């Protein structure tokens, strides 16, 4: 009996020990695991950033709807999915449908058009030639209330009678660096017509007119659509590889009642003065009376340019050289010479930087004698102007206009002509072949390597999405241009920031605009959850690298 009792006792003890070992020894196999999902299903990320062309204005484009048009519009979507094209804080992240296969031979082409409240409408055509390379593009929008230097604005309300205007003169006036004026004359009895050419029965005419001059870079940067349209229409023919060389530009918007005016029953007369220093690229001399300049109109919603007429320069009553033409419809009107037959030469650009290892993001462009943009770099199958430069970089401008005098200029800050840091002598881009650009930058600040991880964390699941998203980093208490745009591919990006600087960090994903701030320095740190974005960072002295992990909430189902 004792043996049996002992046996039972021993068995019970063994069973207890075994149970305890099993129970205490195990934890859930998936504990503390967040499943990762790559959500970069779309191709060719394109960030369109809308900014105020007037850098001193505190008003920035915020939230507005954007129209996507063009032959490949159906392939465009928001970078985080969907086709609800809404910009937030001026950011519009786009991407291409997975079925798109853009290449230099078969680019995907689409147009972005936006009517930003308080700003002149903007339009930009995009050519996507790579399915992987991210492209960011800044559109400079002109604010009516605070126009950029080098432009002139007129916003005026006039009377109509049943949609018919009396004799009306609308003029923009010189202001600041803008030394030219423009005048639009509406004949007495002119009827305001809508897009269907029906008379608009209204009693007031609201006119928003912007005259873009040629004397400032801020005006040039605001030039709708840029100077390299995909193609232009002239006399029923399409011309490709066009480069505009502008003598000015007029954005004319009129609204009768609540309807947009598109046509007039009688042509209106448009006259515009030309800058005294404007060089005629045909003669390579300042514009003289009798010089001719083609006039173009643009359908802003499609980005399509069309030749309208040719104007002849003449002195006006104020002794200024000016042109005059008649227009029967409203759109953007462009006073431009054009080069549709590029010389097909490749211009190779060799970059030399005096500080080895320094990789600044500078703007490097080919410009004409008026420092008007003629072409950007072609790196990694992507057109770009603001690029990361380094000593020894060799890149090309594959298509250059057939223009006699051009030069390469380098700016440390896009849109700021005072930031020019290097330029070459004038050369003929068609015959030069190779050009060396030597940059002597100021001593860079102490830099710190940053590895940034950005993930959307599902609120109801243990899943994190490795997003494809753009991250905007703006250095607090610094000049407006002190920002960096980074594309985070599959949730990861690597770049450099100034050691010790505090940055406002933002990303726009899935309809949410998430922000935080943090100081990137040689310490571990936290990014507080300011507006949905937050995380931590650790510093590794061995490689001078801060590794930051930022997350935002994501709805998953």
């Amino acid at each position, binding site marked *: *009996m*004792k*043996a*049996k009792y*002992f*046996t039972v006792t*021993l*068995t019970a003890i*063994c*069973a207890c020990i*075994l149970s305890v*070992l*099993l129970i205490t*020894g*195990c*934890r*859930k*196999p*998936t*504990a*503390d*695991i*967040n*499943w*990762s*999902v*790559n*959500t970069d*299903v779309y191709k060719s990320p394109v960030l369109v950033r809308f900014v105020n062309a007037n850098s001193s204005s505190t008003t920035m484009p915020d939230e507005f709807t954007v129209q996507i048009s063009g032959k490949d519009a159906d392939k465009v979507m*928001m970078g*985080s*999915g*969907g086709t609800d094209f809404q910009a937030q804080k001026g950011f519009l992240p786009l991407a291409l449908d997975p079925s798109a296969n853009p290449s230099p031979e078969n680019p995907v082409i689409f147009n972005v058009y936006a009517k930003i409240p308080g700003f002149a409408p903007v339009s930009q055509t995009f050519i996507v030639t790579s399915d992987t390379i991210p492209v960011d593009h800044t559109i400079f929008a002109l604010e009516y209330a605070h126009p950029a230097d080098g432009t002139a604005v007129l916003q005026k309300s006039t009377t109509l009678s049943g949609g018919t205007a009396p004799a009306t003169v609308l003029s923009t006036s010189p202001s600041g660096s803008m030394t030219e004026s423009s005048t639009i004359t509406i004949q007495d009895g002119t009827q305001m017509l809508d897009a269907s050419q029906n008379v608009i029965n209204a009693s007031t005419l609201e006119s928003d007119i912007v005259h873009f001059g040629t004397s400032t870079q801020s005006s040039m940067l605001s030039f709708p659509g840029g100077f390299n349209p995909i193609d232009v229409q002239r006399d029923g023919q399409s011309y490709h590889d066009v480069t505009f060389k502008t003598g000015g530009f007029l954005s004319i918007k009129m609204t009768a009642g609540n309807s947009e005016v598109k046509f007039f029953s009688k042509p209106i007369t448009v006259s515009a003065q030309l800058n005294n220093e404007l060089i005629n690229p045909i003669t390579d001399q300042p514009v003289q009376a009798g010089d001719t300049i083609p006039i173009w109109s643009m359908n802003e919603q499609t980005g399509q340019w069309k030749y309208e007429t040719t104007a002849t320069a003449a002195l006006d009553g104020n002794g200024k050289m000016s042109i005059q033409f008649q227009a029967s419809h409203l759109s953007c009107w462009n006073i431009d010479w054009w080069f549709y037959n590029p010389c097909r030469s490749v211009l190779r650009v060799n970059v030399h930087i005096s500080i080895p290892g320094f990789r600044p993001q500078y703007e490097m462009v080919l410009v004409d004698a008026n420092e008007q943009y003629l072409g950007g770099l072609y790196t990694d199958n992507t057109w770009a102007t603001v690029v990361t430069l380094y000593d020894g970089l060799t890149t090309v401008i594959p298509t250059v206009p057939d223009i006699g005098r051009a030069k390469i200029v380098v700016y440390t800050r896009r849109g700021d002509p005072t930031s020019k840091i290097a330029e070459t002598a004038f050369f003929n881009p068609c015959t030069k072949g190779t050009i060396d650009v030597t940059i002597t930058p100021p001593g860079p600040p102490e830099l710190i390597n940053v590895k940034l991880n950005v993930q*959307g964390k*599902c609120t109801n*699941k*243990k*899943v994190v*999405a*490795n*997003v494809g998203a753009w991250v905007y980093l703006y250095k607090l208490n610094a000049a407006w241009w002190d920002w960096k745009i980074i594309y985070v591919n*599959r949730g990861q990006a690597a770049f450099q920031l100034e050691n010790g600087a505090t940055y406002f960090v933002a990303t726009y*994903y*899935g*309809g949410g605009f998430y922000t935080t701030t943090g100081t990137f320095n040689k310490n571990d740190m936290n990014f507080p959850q300011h507006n949905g974005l937050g995380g931590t960072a650790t510093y590794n002295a061995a490689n001078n690298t801060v590794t930051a992990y930022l997350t935002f909430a*994501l*709805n*998953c*189902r």
Partner: protein
Amino acid sequence: MCLKAAAQDIEKTQVAYAAVNSPFMALQRPLMKGGDIATSVIPGFSSKKAIAIFVGTQGVGADFRYGFLPRLSARIGGGVTPVNMPNAFQVNDFKSQVDLKVNFVNAHLIADFQPFPGSGFRLAVGAGYFVKAKTQADVTPTGSNTFGNITYDPGNLGDIKLTADWKGIAPYLGVGFLRTFPGNLFNVNIDLGTYYLTAPQTTIIGTKALSPNAENNAQFQKNLSSYRWLPVLQFNFNFRL
């Protein structure tokens, strides 16, 4: 009969040898003093060889058992655990099904000692070599999964395979109940014990959009690091040879 008598003589000799040399001798003495188990000690094994077919938590298998001494025997054999469990369970994080595959193959050598002759109670000590000791869970999406505005169809999301492999030598400790060797042709006994497996080697392999989950393997390995006890509840069907 002569053969049987001879066998009993040998067993008596073995019992006497064990009583003198066993480390449990001190434990046995008071029990033997009582005299109530003396009759159990003397008969010993009716046969010192047996074949067992077993089924239990470590799978199915067979082993050969040999009694070296009346209270000390050993068994050598092998077992397999081929388990496929389609749609074994659900995970909350994905609309998916999880197929579980368990493939354990082991060879083992275990000694059984009867501290209390006649009780059928055994202490079992030994080791197994797990030629295979792999568990695999296949997580396959079964419906649309949406992350933000991005929806994946099952075929586009990919899948996840989680594996853990305990291959290697594992010591065994346990207890047994009922006699190891059948008095007649056949009997059944029970083992209760555990293998202490090697630390598992884990992998996570994701495909397509789930490919980055390989980075979770370090945590997975950490979570499974304490999964080293393989409990054994085993029913042995013993056939006397």
